């Protein structure tokens, strides 16, 4: 799936915009910019990001 997909929030009917999004895992907090609904905040994480960078970060934190 292409990462530059233009998605819209079904409820708010608006296009997603980059929003600073916060994560936590194993007591560590971090953030990154991800497409999210500017109104309700519904976020999108593409599969390629999950399988790539997110998995790598998860493993790094597990090994830390």
């Amino acid at each position: 799936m292409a990462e530059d997909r233009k998605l819209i929030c079904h409820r708010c009917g608006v296009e997603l915009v980059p929003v600073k999004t916060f994560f936590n895992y194993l007591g560590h907090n971090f953030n990154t910019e991800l497409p999210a609904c500017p109104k309700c905040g519904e976020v999108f994480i593409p599969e390629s990001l999950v399988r790539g960078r997110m998995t790598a970060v998860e493993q790094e934190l597990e090994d830390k």
Partner: protein
Amino acid sequence: MAYLEDFEKLLKERCHQNEVPGCTAACPFRLNIKDIIAKLKKGRFNAAHRVFQNTVGFPAIVAAACDRPCREKCMRNAADAAVDLHALEQAMCRYATRKDPNAYNLPARAERVAVVGAGISGLACALLLCNKKYQVTVFEKSDHIGGSLRDAMDAQLFDEDVQRQFQYEKYECVLSHEVRSIEELAAFDAVYVATGAQADGLGLAASGTGAFATDVPGVFFGGSMRGRTHMQALSDGLLASRAIERYLKTGLMNQPEEEADARFAADPSRYQKKEPVLAANGRYYTEEEAVREAERCELCSCDACMRACDLMRHFDKTPRRIYEEVYVTIRPGTLSRDGTMATRLISTCNRCGVCRSVCPEHIDFGAFFEKSMEEMKKKGAMPWAFHDFWLRDMAFSNGEAACTVLPPGKTEYLFFPGCQLGASDPAYVSRTYAWLREELPGTALHLSCCGIPAQWAGEQELHKAVTDGITATWERLGRLVFILSCPTCMRSFDRYLPGIRWISLYELMAERPSAPALAACREPLAVFDACAAADHPQVRTAVRQVLQKAGIPYEEIPHEDGSLPCCSFGGHAGIAAQRYSERVIERRAAETDRPIVAYCANCRDSFASKEKEAVHILDLLFGLNAGKRPAPTVTERRKNRIRLKRELARVYLGEEPQEEETMKLYISEELKQRMSADLILESDVAEVIRRCEEEDRKLMDPQNGHFIGHKKIMNMTYWTEYLPKEDGFEVFAAYAHRMSLEAEDTKNG
């Protein structure tokens, strides 16, 4: 956490991995032969010679005169012939181009040491003391140095080597001077007496306080006068110099005696035959011949565990290294953050018990990892993700999928198939139970998990709750004898439920003439023993008897030292160490060309996951599946258990359970397989879609109209991309991550 200290003590006292091989132990100099050989294998004659020189003091003399006690200790003797270290020493001396000793630029020391006797022992002691810049005077009764060794060998070679080694050192040599009493040497700070085999030794006696120490303060003795061979005498001189130095610095004569003992024996049966290299010129090796001879050395050490244990072999870790990494992980000390380098390693052990079974001292790394896992859990330092899926699976087995059948009337037995047999194929359980009901009428059945996933996860309380539950069932049903079919359950019952008497299904089948035998099998199968069956030889025998009775030809898979390695399922290591687990099952699959017959459903399914033809023994006996049946997906494993429960309820309890309304999902075969590999259940996907639809929390791709949404279920966050269909949903993607969206956590409260 005293177990860490206990384990360290155990390793120190009983692990042989770090011990020197027999050749080094037999060598008077404790020469690091493995180091030298490793250098020679690379043709590094200078580097090898340097090690040799630093160890023996006079390399040319030793290369010429050594009586080779290493030879008879070489492990290659049993395979073909000992490595010719003597010829290799000579090759080092011949081909090294930098043979001059190191010139030590140290300040002179004021202490004066007398050496009585200029034989090889006295010279060796003098050489090392000169290297340290002590003031050394050697007294010799005769008119030349060298003593009896020089007389016994090429005197020119002897003189040249002595000259070369002393070329940067200054010492006084008093020839033709016999020291008649120790009192003469009162001006010296220390004395080494090595007056040779014929001498009276100046009336000295050993004090027993330390190496080479006499009963006179500051006076040491050694060499041939104490019944030593020439090479031992040389070694004495070298070691005595250290005892003397200790005395000069501390005033104590308590240098520890060197111990030389090789406790381990390598197994030469696995050595490839390599004919000894003979010098083509009949006298000495060429450089190339020397390298080839060095290559015959196996560099042996006790590596029983490192050969047999998949984890140690895969990660190339010594027992000591594992201990150290686990230690700093459990006890990170004063580091600002946890130095948890072995977190994943602790979760990677398959708990198969191979390490313990092959170790000559039965050191149990599995138990060490198990204890370490508990400690990590207590600290909250073990990532939940490593065992989360299987703990949820256990909860499912002991919840939705659990069931008990208790026939009326008197009953003696209870069939406890465990959680995964019915997950692999419900017929394994239903057909076996049907047979048991005919064979032993009144046999009860209880579907649940033995609790091992909690034990493997280090969840002590949870594990206890499960085993307590089994004990309660056992009590409630009248203390029946359990019939176990899963080898892991057997091991688990022995360890954690020792009060419950059990018999294996296969022993029952072996002893009964009416055992099912529907197999039509001509080609031999390879019997794969479950690792957990290591504790139960009677079960392994029974499995073979059942195969024989059924006329099924089979072969054994030879494993080193008779160990039973894991199929990769054990310890639920696959999440923490996916690549490792894949290598393990690939290795197992490659150990035989034959199709596999297993008697553990997890072994069967592990082989199937790598497309290795494998059947469960119950497939053969009841004519169920062929060897090419693929491994069920994680979703199928759950559905199978529900199907089994419904069938049992219908057949034995006369119930017709309502089929639960489930969301209809259309998922391609390819995606199903990927989801299974990612441990994503179709029910997880259904939950995500339900949330998206009910709360209208979803995104839409205007290009294809697909909806995308997510939901956090327990710890994991699942995503799916889907499209509604008339009676369900078509799923295009499913993926999951462990990290949490913070907004999600706030929202979920």
